[in-house]
C-alpha cells in the first residue's frame, strides 16, 4: 500500500514507561526513536502491520505551552481520549498472555454476536479494545 494512514499518535505521560508497555507487554517493536533536545519522536509498530506506526508522544514544549500540556496529560489520565482498537486472532489467548505480563484489563473477554472483545489500558490511561472478529467476517 503506497497511500493511506501512516502514523497516528497517542499522548502518554512517560515515554519510557509507554515504550516498555507497548514493546514488552503488547509485542510491538520500535520503529523510530529520535530526540532533539527534550523532544522525542517515538513510534512503535505491530510486526504484522509494517505500513502503520503508532506514535507515543509526550505533551509539552516545544509543541504545547505548559497549561495545554497539563490539560492533555489530565485528559489522558482520566481516560477521555478516543477509543483504540486492536485486532486479534484469538481474544482469549491474547488476554491470558497479556494478563500474565501485567497488562491492566478493564474488561474480561466477552462474546458479542460471534466476536469476542476485551478492554485494557496503557499505563497513561489510553483505553484499548481488543477485538476478535467473528469467523468468516470481512
Amino acid at each position, binding site marked *: 500500500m503506497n497511500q493511506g494512514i501512516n502514523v497516528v499518535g497517542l499522548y502518554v*505521560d512517560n515515554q519510557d514507561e509507554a515504550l516498555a508497555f507497548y514493546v514488552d507487554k503488547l509485542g510491538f517493536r520500535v520503529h523510530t526513536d529520535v530526540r532533539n533536545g527534550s523532544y522525542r519522536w517515538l513510534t512503535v509498530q505491530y510486526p504484522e502491520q509494517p505500513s502503520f506506526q503508532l506514535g507515543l508522544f509526550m505533551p509539552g514544549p516545544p509543541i504545547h505551552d505548559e497549561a495545554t500540556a497539563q490539560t492533555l*496529560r489530565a485528559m*489522558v489520565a*482520566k481516560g477521555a481520549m478516543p477509543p483504540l*482498537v486492536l485486532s486479534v486472532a484469538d481474544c482469549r489467548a491474547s488476554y491470558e498472555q497479556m494478563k500474565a505480563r501485567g497488562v491492566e484489563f478493564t*474488561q*474480561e473477554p*466477552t462474546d458479542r454476536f460471534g466476536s469476542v472483545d476485551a478492554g485494557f489500558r496503557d499505563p*497513561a490511561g489510553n483505553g484499548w*479494545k481488543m477485538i476478535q472478529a467473528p469467523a468468516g467476517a470481512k
Partner: protein
Amino acid sequence: MPRRRDHHDLPPSIGAQANAGALEDPALLRRLLRAKDRMDAASHEAWPVRRLAEVSGVSEAHFARSFKRAFGVPPHRYLLTRRIEQAITLLRDTDLGITDIAFATGWESLGTFGRIFRDITGHSPGEMRVEARASQSQLECVPACVLKAAQRPDLTIAVLEKRRRDADDTVEPSTREVS
C-alpha cells in the same frame, strides 16, 4: 455565525465553579479512572465509597470529592448510568424478563429499577426494548462495545432533580447519593 460556546457564555457563578472544580493531577486522575473502570466492569456489584476509595488508594472523603471533579458526576450517579446502560443492552439483545434484568444489573427491587429507568430514559423498560430493537440495524458497523458506551444514558442532572422537576418538588428522596 453562531458564537462559539465557552465558559465566557456561562453565568459568572458557574464559570467560577468550573475553574475551581478542574482537577489536573494526572497521577490522581489515573487512580480515579481505575475506580471508574472497576465500576464499568462490574456495575451490578455494590460500590460503596469505601470500596472505590480503596481501588484508588485515597481516603473516602478525598475520593468522593475528587471523582466528581474529575468526571462531572458523583460516583453513585455514574454507577446508575452504567446499570441502566447494561439493562438497555440486555433488553435489546436478550429475551430475559424485566425482573431478571433488574436483578442482573444490580437493583435490589423491581420498583426502584423501573422508576429510575423511566426517570433516566423517559421510557419504561418494556417500551425501551421495542425501541432499541427497532433502531438497531443501522448501527451494525460500529464495534458493539464502543456502541454500548456511546448509548450510555446521560446523567448530568440528578435522577431526583429530574423527578422533582416533573413532580413539582413533591417527591421525597428515596436513594441517598454521595456527592
